[in-house]
């Protein structure tokens, strides 16, 4: 039975789409049949991050409105087997999404896939609520920064009240915290919230910690999810995150300042 996971945050620009792309890629690399759905109708971007923007023909709204079949809209990833992308519409507005339509599509996808990732739009409006409504698990993406942490707390409140699991008194949505853009040297100097501060304030289990990394922009420039950059810190951190999502026990990395040796400093360059 497929697991539906929403990637959400409340605040924009914290790394939802980057994370949805990286985690879905990681799951597919482990052989899990995965589909990632862009719920940001009107402002689609997942296709760009996944590098399939020129292959979009039909989208989520076309499928919901019966203008295209699901298989016509699903884009097969060119790099990994078992990975599919369902893009959002660029032209319609978010009212084109209906709860019944989303439910129908998810039920259909559940037959074929192991994991269904829903990349939520920012905010707490209709699009974001529909992205989380049918979720079994939620990955709450948070930056070590006051407005992001506060908004994550708001989202946690909604996950506990405005989802199918909450409304039907089923087991609650399993919540995971994913901290992104973490900068250990700023944490050490006392100018950034620590990992433990954020965990304590939100009281959610930590799924992963992604360091602030040059590799992320490089990945989005190229349209190649950062998980493929296995030499980079962010790529490795996302890979660890995927392992934990699959129930493996992985020690935390990249949360402390990396001491670089002399040789590394001289020849290692800026590639991290």
């Amino acid at each position: 039975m497929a697991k539906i996971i929403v990637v959400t945050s409340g605040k924009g620009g914290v790394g939802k789409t980057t994370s949805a792309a990286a985690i879905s890629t990681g799951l597919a690399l482990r052989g899990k049949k995965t589909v990632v759905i862009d719920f940001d109708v009107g402002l689609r971007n997942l296709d760009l991050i996944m590098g399939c923007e020129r292959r979009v023909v039909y989208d989520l709204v076309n499928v919901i409105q019966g203008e295209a079949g699901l298989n016509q809209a699903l884009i097969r990833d060119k790099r990994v087997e078992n990975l599919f992308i369902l893009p959002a519409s660029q032209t319609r507005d978010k009212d084109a999404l209906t709860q019944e339509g989303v439910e129908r599509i998810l039920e259909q996808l559940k037959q074929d896939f192991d994991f269904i990732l829903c990349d939520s739009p920012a905010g707490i409006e209709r699009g974001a609520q529909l992205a989380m409504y049918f979720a079994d698990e939620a990955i709450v993406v948070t930056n070590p920064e006051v407005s992001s942490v506060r908004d994550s707390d708001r989202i946690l409140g909604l996950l506990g009240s405005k989802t199918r699991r909450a409304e039907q008194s089923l087991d609650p949505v399993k919540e995971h915290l994913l901290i992104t853009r973490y900068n250990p040297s700023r944490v050490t100097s006392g100018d950034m919230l620590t990992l433990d501060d954020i965990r304590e304030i939100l009281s959610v289990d930590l799924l992963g910690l992604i360091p602030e990394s040059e590799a992320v922009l490089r990945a989005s420039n190229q349209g190649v999810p950062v998980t493929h950059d296995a030499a980079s810190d962010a790529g490795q951190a996302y890979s660890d995150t995927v392992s934990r999502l699959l129930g493996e026990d992985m020690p935390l990395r990249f949360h402390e300042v990396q001491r670089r040796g002399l040789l590394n400093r001289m020849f290692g360059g800026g590639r991290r």
Partner: protein
Amino acid sequence: MKLLEFLKRERKKSASVAKERLQIIVAHQRGQRGQPDYMPLLERELLEVIRRYVQVDDDAIQISLDSEDNCSVLELNVTLPKS
């Protein structure tokens, strides 16, 4: 001596300020979770009514709604100033 003290005084780290502010605002947010949408307005209007008779501060009023099996209890706490 004064100079030495000045130099030794540690600047309060911005991250700990952030943490304190977040703890307060998040506790407040959680208090409002699951409340009906009319609660903030009800709170404001109750405060207005009380102020027609007694001058109280904004934070002198606490209002909460607790639901039990088949009834809800609206609890109102107002701290009046010493007269």
